[in-house]
């Protein structure tokens, strides 16, 4: 990219991405530092440098805070990028992993895993397969019912309800599984630890998935022009669509495998980022990943601190913050639709 001509708006966008990156770093620092036992920046630095896991501060840092912060950032980024991809591929602004059943599919798979006490890569893999099955089902149903912009979302909502009902049934029959908690149903991070073995595989998948999404940003943009135009430009439409939907499922599935049915990130963050930086996927994907991570980390922080020693699931805060914010964005956009 060094040598390529950049326009003034590209510079503007680069500044926005850097600002979002700083927000993310700040949110991450706060998320690591604050909690029942606050850690000072010096303590965090020392734990990081020495890798010390014996002192109280070191144990808190390595076994509690760091995994939790990483989980927040990864879940936020994964769900937001998944939402970006779904919105572009299905060319529908309402498409989001929590709305069209992708999260629910992953959630059902994770619930099944918990019934059978599975852990590690198995859970991530199952979550991906669950999410993939949901995406494939919605995609096929949309074709059968007419493939209009509306039917995609409608069939998604139906699939979502069906899969959630199946999960609820399992939880009713197996109330002792970890998945019965409110935390899983609305999405939260209180169960995340570095030792459970479920987190790190999923984080690795999310990082790779976001990088792959960035690599495919031109394909995503070309596909968003409509399938016939994309075909004319030389995109193998069917294969590309399938690949991108699988990627969206992978990202959402990996996130759900450790944070539960965290809604709303996948819907609002892409819209928020688009209103800031435009629809060009080269910018939209990194922006969404950064904003998603920062937002979830901050919501989780609020969920931990505001009513301490009680802790609410982060998903609740996300809804309280996200819903009004999203409505404000809709009203604002209606007022002046100017996209730089």
């Amino acid at each position: 990219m060094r040598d390529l001509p950049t326009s003034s708006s590209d510079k503007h966008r680069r500044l926005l991405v850097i600002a979002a990156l700083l927000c993310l770093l700040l949110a991450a620092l706060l998320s690591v530092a604050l909690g029942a036992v606050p850690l000072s920046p010096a303590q965090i630095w020392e734990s990081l440098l020495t890798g010390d896991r014996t002192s109280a501060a070191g144990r808190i840092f390595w076994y509690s805070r760091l995994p939790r912060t990483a989980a927040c950032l990864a879940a936020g980024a994964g769900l937001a990028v998944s939402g970006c991809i779904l919105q572009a591929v299905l060319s529908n602004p309402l498409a989001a992993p929590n709305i069209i059943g992708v999260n629910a599919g992953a959630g059902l798979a994770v619930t099944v895993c918990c019934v059978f006490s599975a852990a590690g890569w198995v859970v991530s893999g199952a979550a991906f397969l669950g999410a993939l099955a949901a995406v494939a089902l919605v995609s096929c149903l949309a074709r059968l019912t007419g493939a209009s912009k509306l039917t995609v979302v409608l069939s998604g909502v139906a699939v979502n309800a069906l899969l959630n009902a199946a999960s609820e049934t399992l939880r009713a029959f197996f109330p002792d599984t970890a998945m019965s908690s409110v935390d899983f149903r609305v999405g939260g991070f209180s169960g995340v630890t570095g030792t459970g073995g479920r987190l790190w595989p999923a984080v690795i998948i999310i990082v790779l998935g976001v990088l792959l999404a960035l690599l495919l940003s031109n394909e995503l943009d070309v596909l968003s022009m409509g399938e016939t135009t994309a075909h004319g430009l030389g995109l193998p439409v069917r294969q590309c669509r399938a690949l991108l939907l699988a990627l969206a499922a992978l990202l959402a599935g990996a996130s759900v495998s450790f944070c539960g049915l965290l809604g709303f990130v996948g819907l609002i963050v892409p819209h928020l980022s688009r209103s800031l930086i435009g629809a060009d996927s080269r910018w939209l994907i990194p922006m969404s990943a950064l904003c998603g991570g920062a937002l979830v980390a901050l919501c989780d922080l609020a969920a931990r601190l505001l009513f301490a020693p009680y802790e609410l699931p982060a998903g609740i805060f996300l809804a309280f913050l996200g819903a009004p914010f999203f409505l404000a964005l809709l009203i604002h956009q209606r007022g002046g639709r100017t996209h730089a």
Partner: protein
Amino acid sequence: MLEFRHLTAGYGKRPVLRDLDLTLNPGEITVIGGLNGCGKSTLLKTASGLLPPLGGQVLLEGRPLSELSPQQRARQMAYLPQGRNVPELTAFRMVLHGRFAYLSFPRQYRREDFDAARAALAWVGGEHLSERSMSSLSGGERQKVYIAMALAQDTGVILMDEPTTYLDIRARFEVMELARRLAGMGKTVVMVLHDLDLTLRFAQRVVLLAEGGVAADGPPARLCDDGSVERVFGVAAVKVPLDRGEDYLFRPLPKAP
């Protein structure tokens, strides 16, 4: 050059066009015309590779379309479909995606792609639209951006499906003028067009389809004079002398008593 050899095309098992033979030449605007449902769009979709032929073949620069990869096809033929999504991308980015078929591994556009896109946007007179979002442009401006995209694609054949629909009269003339200049560069420009006036003014050749085949083929003025237009469309083409040259008026046929 685009050729159809014994082409049978349609949807599912039902052919709309049967055993069609046609060669479309470079340097000309060829308009495909006919009544609604005569197979104009079917022909264009089959030519673009969107619709697999039910029989026969489509040859693009002498090679069967079915043997080309999507990338190879898109380097030789651009296709501007009708009804399209309006993406939130900037005009320049749209034109740049005209270079999509030339992307290789790192999936990044290179300097020559940027240069080609910039030149194409300037060629249609749209430099000032460069940073505007597609959704903020008028219909005519959008169509110019799409034509620039097809030009950046650097192909020998350009297919356009009703490029003037929903445009005001000035934009319609501008689009047709651009098409004429594209043909002037030696490209094979093929379009489906309903507007007989524009066809008459801009096309070098008209192929009228009816009943699953070619009903008439030739320069537009000749098809007006020899009764082909009347036969296919059921309207009268009345020659009107002007101060300089002549023009045609299309009127309903008088009802039989």
